[in-house]
């Protein structure tokens, strides 16, 4: 069934179709409608889940962890400062191997107080052991929530499904809402081998001596390394059933491109328009949108840029004192594999500053005019 819905409701429908059993969340702009709709679904019983109201995001995640330990499929959503407040418990989720799925609406961190989009909130959590999926349309948001439950529960690693504030969260788009029966077929119930029950009590997360801790971390990483293949496999299964592939990256006209733009999130969709316009002007550009940031899809990126003469990575985030974070990761993926391929790092769109097709044309022009990047960071659109 096709419906015109906002990105926030795409998260809600994804959680509903995924039959989330416990939802604990605290409202924050621009995430509020996600849990508003889910609480209505719980109230009118169209979703058979327990909705736990809490007094903070820290408690929201704590409640999710308890529910997940008890074997429930668990969902929450947050944004920016709310995600930052959860930080400690994000480690508990991954370290405890609890496959919570969380929507995060990318919102710039305060101060200055902002409700608009950039990626610093979620990217600041990159080392917490969560998988991160950056979406570029409301359809992809809904589909990815369902896939994330499947991948997370198989690997016992939590997932963050990420969308841009307002540009997706509050924007209405036509979304195909899959049939519940087919989703049930795709996503079987969560049934972990170890769970907390009154009949069989366990202790979790206890003191772990140097004799054991190291191996727990080794195993978390080893499971994370299985994610790229599993995401591709479950993405193909999804395509077979619902007609939409869910992969690690999305390539648009990369095969014969001289210049490849590397993008993510909603701007990764807008970049397609710029690429099509540049092609009409005779410039062989392509767009490689990175969807999965953790685990980072090294191999597919190395293969995708083969044959390109230049790479321009566009970041809507910054690691202060270093670079844009996608730029860092792309360079680390290509090091030793790309034979001196020039990689340019651009930062734009912080705090919700609009990213338009012209932004990508400006980036393209800068890149074409130079053999190598002259600056560590190339800023686009700063007004001083």
């Amino acid at each position, binding site marked *: 069934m096709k419906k015109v819905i906002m990105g926030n409701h795409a998260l809600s429908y994804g959680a509903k179709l995924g039959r989330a059993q416990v939802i604990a969340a605290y409202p924050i702009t621009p995430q509020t409608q996600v849990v508003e709709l889910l609480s209505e679904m719980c109230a009118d019983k169209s979703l058979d889940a327990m909705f736990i109201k809490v007094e903070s995001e820290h408690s929201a995640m704590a409640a999710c962890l308890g529910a997940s330990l008890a074997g429930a499929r668990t969902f929450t959503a947050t944004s920016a400062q709310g995600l930052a407040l959860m930080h400690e418990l994000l480690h508990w989720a991954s370290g405890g191997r609890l496959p919570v799925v969380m929507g995060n609406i990318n919102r710039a961190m305060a101060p200055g107080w902002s409700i608009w989009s950039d990626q610093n909130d979620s990217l600041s959590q990159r080392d917490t052991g969560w998988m991160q999926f950056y979406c570029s349309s409301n359809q992809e948001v809904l589909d990815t929530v369902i896939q994330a439950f499947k991948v997370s529960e198989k690997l016992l690693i939590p997932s963050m499904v990420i969308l841009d504030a307002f540009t997706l969260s509050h924007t*209405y788009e036509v979304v195909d809402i899959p049939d519940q029966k087919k989703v049930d077929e795709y996503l079987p119930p969560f049934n972990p081998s170890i769970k907390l029950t009154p009949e069989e009590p366990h202790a979790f997360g206890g003191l772990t001596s140097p004799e054991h801790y190291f191996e727990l971390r080794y195993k978390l990483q080893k499971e994370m390394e299985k994610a790229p293949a599993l995401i591709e496999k479950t993405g193909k299964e999804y395509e077979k059933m619902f007609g939409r592939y869910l992969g690690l990256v999305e390539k648009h006209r990369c095969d014969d491109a001289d210049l490849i733009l590397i993008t993510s999130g909603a701007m990764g969709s807008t970049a397609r328009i710029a690429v099509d316009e540049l092609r009409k002007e005779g410039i062989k550009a392509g767009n490689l949108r990175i969807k999965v940031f953790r685990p980072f899809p090294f191999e597919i990126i190395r293969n995708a840029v083969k044959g390109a003469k230049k790479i321009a990575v566009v970041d809507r985030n910054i690691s202060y004192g270093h670079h844009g974070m996608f730029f860092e990761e792309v360079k680390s993926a290509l090091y030793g594999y790309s034979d001196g391929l020039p990689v340019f790092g651009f930062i734009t769109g912080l705090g919700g500053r609009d990213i338009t097709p012209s932004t990508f044309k400006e980036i393209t022009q800068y890149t074409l005019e130079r053999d190598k990047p002259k600056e560590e960071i190339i800023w686009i659109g700063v007004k001083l």
Partner: protein
Amino acid sequence: MIEIRFHGRGGQGTVVASKILADTIAKEGNYVQAYPEFGVERRGAPVYAFIRIDDKPIYDKSKIYKPDHVVVVDPSLIEAIDVTEGLKEGGCIIINSEKKPEDLKFSNKFKVITVNATEISVKHKLGTLAAPIVNTAIVGAVVKILNLAKIGSLLEAVREGVPTKPEDNAAAAREAYESSENINK
């Protein structure tokens, strides 16, 4: 692709109007993207809503700066802001007004079409005399003037999209639709 910008004031249902228009378009199998101006809403302050319509998937997620048409829900806005900012030459200004188009002082680069949505809404008892809710009447007129969809899709979207009085709203949308001219004819 058609890009439209709505101008209204907080509390008049401008964002709801753009959502109902989006639903109307989607019912006919076309693609649509609708978004409000991203800010903090206040009753009475100027608000904006934007909509893109196409028969192909819409990939552009940036804001609309050069709309093909603008819709003015509250006529008092033309004293306060430039509703024609960025409007393409030859584009329509569809405005809720009891005046004749030639009595509104717009540049002749644009096609001005007036709709007496306030009168229609009051007649159908939508809102109050002091604060009529004109959004469904305006959408009815826009759908007809720009030839965006059939009346059946419009009425269905109105009935599903309004918080109260589905039949009165549908009647207002129908009256505005039927009393407006299709510019493409």
